[in-house]
């Protein structure tokens, strides 16, 4: 169950070198995780410039405070948590917009643009999934995104969401149930669906994002 961490190094060595004063090691970490952090951050604050600036600030702070940092178990999880805390604080400060009052503290928004669409057939499906996701809570969207985009395991999810593992499992599987039921509730054995799925799985190559 650990394969997600093994595909692509987890940068433990780079983190150690960074702590020892190697700034380029931090640069390697920056380059490796910048895109992942942007993807996550933009679910919380929907401006890519703001999110990217915050990520840069985060790394500057990490460099300045490296003497007070210790080894981390997983660099990516550490960065995600730091960025999340950062963005939530910022979000609270700027949330005095009378026109746009949200009751949720940290809306986690997944939109149509977040889906990888390669063929016509996938457009309709994605739209359905998006509208399902809108009916879920921010937490449910977040756990789904962290599990299926960032491929975090349950212990890591528990850390980021500040819940215990069993609650995370329940959260994830209940949200998936809701989506499964609403989206194209067709029976898997329907030949049309089967064909579509098999085609999607084996019928295409390249143009996929690199393993994260």
């Amino acid at each position, binding site marked *: *169950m650990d*394969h*997600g*961490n093994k*595909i692509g190094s987890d940068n433990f060595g780079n983190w150690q070198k960074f702590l020892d004063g190697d*700034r380029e090691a931090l*640069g390697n970490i*920056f*380059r490796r995780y*910048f*895109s*992942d952090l*942007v*993807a996550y951050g933009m679910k919380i604050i929907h401006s*890519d410039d703001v999110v*990217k600036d915050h990520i*840069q*600030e985060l*790394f*500057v702070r990490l*460099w*300045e*405070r490296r003497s*007070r940092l*210790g*080894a981390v*178990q997983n660099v990516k999880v550490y960065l995600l948590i730091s960025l999340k805390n950062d963005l939530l604080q910022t979000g609270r400060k700027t949330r005095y917009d009378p026109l746009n009052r949200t009751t949720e503290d940290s809306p986690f928004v*997944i939109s149509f643009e*977040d*889906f*990888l669409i390669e063929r016509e057939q996938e457009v309709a*499906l994605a739209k359905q*999934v998006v509208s399902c996701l809108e009916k879920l809570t921010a937490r449910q969207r977040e756990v789904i*995104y962290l*599990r*299926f985009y960032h*491929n975090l*395991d*349950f*212990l890591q999810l528990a850390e980021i969401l500040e819940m*215990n*593992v*069993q609650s995370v*499992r329940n959260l*994830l*599987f209940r949200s*998936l149930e809701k*989506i*499964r039921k609403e989206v194209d509730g067709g029976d*898997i054995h329907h030949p049309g669906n*089967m064909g579509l*799925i098999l085609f*999607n*799985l*084996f019928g295409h190559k390249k143009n*996929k*994002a*690199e*393993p*994260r």
Partner: protein
Amino acid sequence: MDQFNQDIYKELLADNRFALWASGRNEADDLYWEQWKKSRPDSIHPFNEACRTVRMLNFKSPEISSKEVSERWLQSKKKMKLRLVPQFSSDAIFWYRRIAGILILPLLLITLWFFYNHRQLKSDFIRISDYSQKKTIRVVAPLGGQLDVELPDGSKAWLNSGSEINYPVYFAQGEREVEIKGEVYFRVFKSDKMFVVKNPGPTIKVYGTEFNVHAYPDENEITVALAKGKIALEENGRDLMMSPGEIAIFDKTIGDLAIKKSDIYPYTCWREGKYIFRDVPLGAILKTLERRYHVKIRLDDPDLSQFKYNATINGEPLEQILKLMTFSAPIKYEYKRYQMKADGSYSQAEVKLWRDTSKILNPKK
């Protein structure tokens, strides 16, 4: 999908190897999953459902050119050079925050302690005891619950039901020592200072590592399972070393310590809510269930406790587990739920197990 299929479905979705393949990011595994399906023909339905789920949630990466990433890194580096934060003031702020943090915790805990003193619901409670010079914090995970604790050096301890840990508010020069009872999984932050775990069995010494200690005072066997790093166990004045992938079993009754290679997942999966029993006598399994579900289990026929089971428990309701047990052993059970008493507190749930004489015995010694 019936219950059985749900388990396979969930197992697949929890598996990153599956998730990466099903989303198309790892074609190298095509053959592996083909063979998986061939060897488990009755799991095709949940397999396909899992594939469908993953495909529905196929997110894309933001489009950021490597040029942009490099430019932003250069910008960051410039900011690092420009901002010369005076060492003193940033350190002062750091220490101020740290001391304030240490003060807030005891005050908050005392308040909580008064608040929760009357309640017997499933809540975690923390007691602070004052030993002559250094304040020691004692954290207890209640029966039926689990919790995790962050230690003063950033190390982390996960406590299983009915376990406790005692640790100082801060680690003094040159040493880090904690004391535990029960089952605790440690992730020890790497440092020059040795980290010492005192427990009902042999004292454990580490520098930076991940391991599980199973040392309940009411059990004869104490085990330590090492996931990462290096551990030394103190026995009769000398240190026995352990390597990752090994477990140490200490028998309290005869004082025997044995170290051997083993799959350590069954010893650490409790953090995920799983319990794996391989050839374990019923008596030991019942003890685990008592703690995990906070029930009292009575076995009327003590001979039954010798029956050995292979079982995996994954957070199912207790009654379901008991029912499954009756399928493979000649036992019957009676389950009495916890009830609210007249004074508002709750009595403990109780389970009685006794021999089912109508079934043919199937000794699995």
